[in-house]
């Protein structure tokens, strides 16, 4: 049973990591290679805030906002002029973001590891189902579920979500109806960047904060996004659950096969349902 609890924590961590990537792709059609770099930046900003204030919770609240603001600035100054061009320009641009962000982080924080301690509220393990479960893992499950629910409500049930979807599916029509599409795109990119940073903040007490941390998560993010269906938030949640539980079971019974299990899932998805296991059927008028 402890495997299920740990699997859930893996799943929601994966979801937090991948949500921003799928959001930006789904709504803007941009494959954001810099997602991992924004995740890393979120962790570093959180470290700085914790260093100044001593509070993880202030870091959790403000680091995503800082990175979201930076994302908005990036979108306005660099991405906006290339939306109308071929996708390759957007790919190259987001790849360039990685280099700029990594060099900036190196200049500001240096090469050595940084550390964010586990918040005191969740520093003790809890005896549960015959195991000692880190209470921080339970926080990840609860927080991840909350973020996924909020995202779902925002995009599928709110007026703002309707505007975003309208701007995404037919930007010219949305513009004609009075929607400021440029502003919507900026908001979506900022939200996606903030979500990447949120993933970095939540992961910070679990992993070392260092320059390569963004690179190591980006593959997992793409796996979740591809299995869930590009741009599909509900699909990303289900894919993260599938992957997280598969990994927890894999580590329990066959740790050497975990990576293989992950990539077999990816290949099977691409071969059988290239648009994602949980993709929605397209509607025609």
């Amino acid at each position, binding site marked *: 049973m402890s495997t299920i609890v740990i699997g859930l924590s893996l799943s929601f961590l994966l979801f937090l990591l991948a949500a921003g990537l799928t959001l930006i792709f789904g709504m803007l059609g941009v494959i954001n290679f810099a997602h991992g770099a924004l995740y890393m930046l979120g962790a570093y900003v959180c470290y700085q805030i914790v260093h100044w204030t001593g509070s993880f919770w202030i870091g959790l609240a403000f680091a995503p906002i800082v990175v979201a603001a930076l994302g908005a600035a990036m979108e306005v100054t660099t991405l906006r002029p290339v939306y109308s061009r071929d996708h390759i320009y957007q790919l190259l641009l987001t790849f360039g973001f990685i280099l700029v962000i990594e060099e900036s982080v190196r200049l500001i924080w240096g090469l050595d590891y940084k550390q964010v301690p586990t918040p005191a509220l969740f520093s003790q393990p809890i005896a549960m189902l015959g195991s*000692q479960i880190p209470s921080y893992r339970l926080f990840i499950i609860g927080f991840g579920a909350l973020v996924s629910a909020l995202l779902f409500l925002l995009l599928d049930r709110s007026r703002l979500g309707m505007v975003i979807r309208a701007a995404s599916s037919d930007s010219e029509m949305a513009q004609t109806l009075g929607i400021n599409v440029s502003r919507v795109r900026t908001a979506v990119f900022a939200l996606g960047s903030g979500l990447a940073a949120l993933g970095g903040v939540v992961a910070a007490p679990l992993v*070392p904060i260092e320059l390569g941390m963004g690179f190591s998560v980006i593959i997992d993010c793409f796996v979740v996004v591809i299995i869930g269906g590009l741009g599909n938030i509900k699909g990303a949640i289900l894919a993260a659950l599938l992957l997280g539980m598969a990994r927890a079971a894999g*580590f329990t019974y066959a740790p050497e096969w975990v990576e293989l299990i992950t990539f077999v899932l990816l290949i099977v998805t691409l071969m059988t349902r290239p648009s994602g296991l949980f993709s929605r059927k397209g509607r025609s008028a």
Partner: protein
Amino acid sequence: MDRRTFLVSSAGVALVALNPVTGVLAADEPADFHIAGVLAFSGAYGIIGKDMRQGVELAIADRGGKVLGKPIRVSWEDDETKPQPAVQKATRLLAGGAQMMFGAVGSASTLALQGLADQRKIPLLVTISADDKITRPNGSRYTFRTSNTLGMEIRMCVEFAKVKGLKKIYGVTADYQATRDGWELFVAEAKKVGIEIVGNDYAPLGNRDYSVIVDKMAKSDADGIAVMVTGNDAVTFLKQSGQVGLNKTKVQFGPVLQDETLAAAVGPAAVGVYSGVRYHFTVDNPANKKFVEAYRTKYNEWPSSFAGEAYDGISWWLDVVESTKSWDRETWVDAFAKSTRENSLEGKKVMRACDHQAAQVGLWGVVVEGQSPLPPLTMKITDVFDASKLFDAC
């Protein structure tokens, strides 16, 4: 000059330039002693490259920046911790006249550079990569390692487990060949001294979640946890094992599990973790005290094991080159293969002619809370294992 004369002259010049004998003669009077420094300066291992570079630069400054009466010039290149860029960049530096190579950080890059060293007959000095295959009997004539091997560090683990009285061990091993070999050696040596292995999990390199493995360890009846991972993986494991209090119920140890840099990244959960230590600034001898003082003066920080090993290795090499009074690389190689460093930072080191591996003592320590001016989490050396217990006879 007619066309025929031009072609004949050009062919003659090309032949002279390509001839290895005349090539050596042309290199007899170099303007400087050129070292190709190929390290990781970016990514997760960037900090290791930075520290090694600082160690080398201090060693060169200590000798007035010269060897054999010529200035020492180091060209630094970032191999991005990958073999292919390492070889490409080293090849370019060798084409520019470098007389030796220094590096790399990762063993895969070092093994790639080793091939280049043998092919081009250029000495390669290794001061951090620990894969046992780098120095082996009848191996590379041009490769020398002055730092630890993984094999000796594994033997230190077994010695520690024996001294500590551990009876049952659960292991976690990074899933790549060098650490797999290391784990197999550990199991074989541990069984010889009556230690039972109750479990082991191979985790992917760069694994970010050890929670399931930690849970299995916590539920086992092991009294010791052998952690055969290092770097980021070691930090991740110890942070996550600390969240369930594994450090309070079982002894965690590993061959290269902790130093001051990694302990700072782990935080309080690092306290009480045992590890092999390649070099330490608290080693009590005149050479080390002098080095630590100079390093702190120049860089305002404590020297890491990477900086200490780099300083020690390059100082030894340059002293040997100086003693040969020759610019012939073969003479350097022959001299270094039978040299002894009496005043190394860690005490006496003897270069073994059979495999070009420096025989040396093994340092073992535990993470403790440091008192100022030491780092907040610092290694305390608890054991010094004699070389005779750590190396097979040649």
